[in-house]
C-alpha cells in the first residue's frame, strides 16, 4: 500500500530517487572512477620499460669522432636512448629534464689519446643525482663505455625477468580507486544532500512533522549504501575483465571492508554537513577533508614515499586504512586477521564521526 506509514522506507526511497534523477551524480559515482581506471590502466599497461634519454655533446675536431664512436657504443645498451647534441643545446636539454644524463668530452691531456680510447682524456658525466633514472643512466652509460673500451667482465651474471600479476601499476591502482570512490561518494552524497535540504528549509519543514530525526539520517546513509554493491561490482569487474586484476582474498571480506569504509565516509559526510548552511560552505569543507587523503593515502602512489616521521599520521587517516585493507585483500589475498588493524582504524573513525555529528547536528 502506497500510503501506509513506512517513514524510513519512504525517506530512503526519496533519497535514492533524488540521487538517480541527478545524472551528474551518477557520472561521478560510476563513470568517473571507471574512466580514471581505464585511462591510468592504459597509460601504465605492461610494456617494455621506456629507455632513458641521454645526450652526448659533440666535441670539436678529434672530439667529434670520439663522440660519434661513444654514441655508437652507448646505443647498444637496451636501456639508453642516445642523442648527439651541440654542447649548448645539450646543457639546455639536461637543465629542462629532456635528457637524464649528459656526457661531455673532457679536456685532453697534452699528447694524449682520443677520448674513449682508454687514454687520459676523461668523459664527464653531468646529471642530477636526485633523479633515479639519471643514476641508472650513469651506471649504464659508464658500463657501455668501459666495455666498448675493452673491459672484460669478471663474474658471470644471468638475468631473469619477473612479470607477476599483482605487482603491476594497475594492480596497485584498482584498490586505491575503490577506496577513493567510497570516500567521494560517501562524503558528497551525505554532505550535499543534507546541506541542500537545510539551505532550502526542507529540514525545518521535516522536523515540523512527527518524522523521527533518526529516520531521516538513517535514510541518508541507507540511500548511499544501496549503491555500494553496484559501485564495487563495476570497479572490481572492470579491473578483472579489462586488466586481469583478480581478487585474491575473500569477496565477502572485500564487501565487509567496503561497507565499513562506506559507513565511515557517510559519518564524515554527516559530520561535515552537521552545521553548514550553504552548498558553497559544504563544498569547501568537504574538499578540505578529502584533499589531504587524495594525496597522502596511497591512491595513485604508495604512501610509503612520505617521510617516516609522518607515517603514523598517514596511517591513521581513514582512506589510508581503507586502501591498505583493500590492497591487502585484493592483491595479497590477506585474511581478516591480517587487515584487522586497518578495520579497527576505520571503525574508530566511523563511530567518532557519527557520535560527534549527531551531537552537533543543526536541524534548521
Amino acid at each position: 500500500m502506497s500510503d501506509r506509514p513506512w517513514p524510513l522506507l519512504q525517506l530512503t526511497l526519496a533519497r535514492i530517487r533524488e540521487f538517480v534523477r541527478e545524472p551528474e551524480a551518477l557520472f561521478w559515482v560510476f563513470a568517473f572512477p571507471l574512466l580514471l581506471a581505464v585511462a591510468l590502466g592504459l597509460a601504465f599497461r605492461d610494456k617494455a620499460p621506456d629507455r632513458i634519454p641521454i645526450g652526448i655533446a659533440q666535441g670539436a675536431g678529434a672530439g667529434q669522432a670520439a663522440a660519434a664512436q661513444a654514441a655508437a657504443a652507448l646505443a647498444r645498451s637496451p636501456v639508453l636512448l642516445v642523442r648527439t647534441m651541440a654542447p649548448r643545446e645539450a646543457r639546455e636539454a639536461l637543465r629542462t629534464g629532456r635528457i637524464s644524463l649528459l656526457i661531455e668530452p673532457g679536456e685532453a691531456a697534452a699528447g694524449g689519446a682520443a677520448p674513449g680510447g682508454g687514454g687520459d682524456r676523461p668523459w664527464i658525466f653531468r646529471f642530477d643525482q636526485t633523479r633515479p633514472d639519471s643514476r641508472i643512466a650513469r651506471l649504464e652509460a659508464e658500463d657501455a663505455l668501459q666495455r666498448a673500451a675493452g673491459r672484460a667482465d669478471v663474474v658471470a651474471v644471468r638475468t631473469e625477468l619477473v612479470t607477476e600479476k599483482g605487482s603491476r601499476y594497475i594492480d596497485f591502482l584498482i584498490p586505491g580507486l575503490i577506496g577513493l570512490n567510497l570516500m567521494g561518494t560517501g562524503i558528497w552524497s551525505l554532505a550535499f544532500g543534507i546541506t541542500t535540504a537545510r539551505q532550502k528549509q526542507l529540514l525545518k519543514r521535516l522536523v515540523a512533522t512527527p518524522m523521527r530525526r533518526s529516520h531521516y539520517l538513517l535514510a541518508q546513509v541507507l540511500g548511499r549504501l544501496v549503491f555500494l554493491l553496484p559501485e564495487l561490482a563495476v570497479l572490481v569487474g572492470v579491473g578483472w575483465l579489462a586488466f586481469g586484476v583478480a581478487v585474491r582474498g575473500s569477496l565477502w571480506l572485500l564487501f565487509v571492508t567496503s561497507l565499513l569504509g562506506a559507513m565511515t565516509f557517510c559519518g564524515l559526510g554527516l559530520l561535515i554537513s552537521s552545521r553548514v548552511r550553504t552548498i558553497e560552505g559544504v563544498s569547501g569543507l568537504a574538499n578540505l577533508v578529502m584533499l589531504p587523503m587524495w594525496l597522502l593515502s596511497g591512491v595513485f602512489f604508495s604512501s610509503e614515499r612520505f617521510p617516516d616521521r609522518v607515517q603514523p599520521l598517514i596511517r591513521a587517516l581513514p582512506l589510508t586504512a581503507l586502501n591498505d585493507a583493500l590492497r591487502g585483500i585484493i592483491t595479497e589475498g590477506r585474511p581478516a586477521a591480517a587487515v584487522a588493524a586497518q578495520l579497527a582504524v576505520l571503525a574508530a573513525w566511523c563511530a567518532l564521526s557519527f557520535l560527534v555529528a549527531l551531537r552537533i547536528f543543526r536541524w534548521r
Partner: protein
Amino acid sequence: MPESLLETDPQAPPAPAAPEVAVRCSGLRKRYGEVVAVDGLDLEVRRGECFGLLGPNGAGKTTTLEILEGLTLPDAGEVEVLGATWAEGGNALRQRLGLALQETQLSAKLTVIETLRLFRSFYLRGRPPETVMARLALDEKRDSPVGKLSGGQKQRLAVACALVGDPELLFLDEPTTGLDPQSRLQLWEQVAEFRRGGGTVALTTHYMEEAERLCDRVAIVDHGRVIALGTPAELIASLHAADVVEFASEPELPRESLLRLEGVREVRRHGANWMLAVGSLTAGVPALLAAVERAGARLAHLSTHRATLEDVFVALTGRALREE
C-alpha cells in the same frame, strides 16, 4: 543566531486550557541580536475558527507562528497548543498539526505524489495522498517533478503536505503570497473546506483582503505586538467610518477645511490624493463636492471604497500595510 533555551516560568504549570481553545500564548518575546521580533505578544485561537495575524513584513508574524509551531524557542513567554506545551507534547502534538512554512522548497526531484506519500508516511493517521492531491487540483501534475511546478502549484503542494496528516490544527505562513488571483481563490476554498471538517486554522498574511475573506478573527500585529484584535467587521467598525472617499483637486484643499466637513472622521494623504474616512457616503460626498465648489477648485480624482482592514491598520499606525 543563538537560540536561547525556553525560559520557563518557575511557578506551577498553567491550568489546562479550556477545550474550546486550540492555541494560547502569553508574554511571548523573541529577539535576534539587536532586533526584537516579538515583544510581549498574547493571543488565543479558538477551536474551529480561522485566526489571522495581519501585519506588514517584519512585524513578527512569522516568528510568532514558528514559536507556536514549536520550531523556535521564545526567549520568554508561554505557549500551549491543543492543551499541551511543546515540552510535554513533542511528537504526539506534531501528529495533530499540519503546517506550511513560508520558504520551504520541497525536493525538486521528487514528483507530487512521491512528496505526498513521503509526508503521509510520517503520520500515524492521515488522508490518502491521492485524495488530498485531487482536492488541491494537483492530479494533473501527479507525476511531475516538484521542480517543474509553477509557483501556485508549489504552494498548493505545500498546503497538501500540511493536510495529508489529517490535522486538527493548521498553521499557514503567508499561504498566498506571490500567487495569482486564481490560485489564491483555490487555496482559500481549501482552507474553507478544511474548516467545514471542524479544523482550526491560524495563518499570517499581509493581504487585508485575505484576512477579511478568510478569518473569523484577526490580530493586527506591528513591531512584535498585537495592536488590535477582533472580527474583521468589529475592527472596521472601530473606525466609525464605513467608507473611504479618495479625491484630488486643483488647487488642493487644506486639511483643516476637510476635517470640518460633515461626517468626516479622519483625513490622511495617500500619494497625491486625500483620503477621507466618512460615516456615510450619502452625507460625506455631497459635503465634499460642495466644499470643492465653494473653493472654486476643479476635481481631478474621486473614488470611494468600503473601509477595509487596511484602513484600520493605517488609522492605528499611520503607515500602509504594504509599502510598495
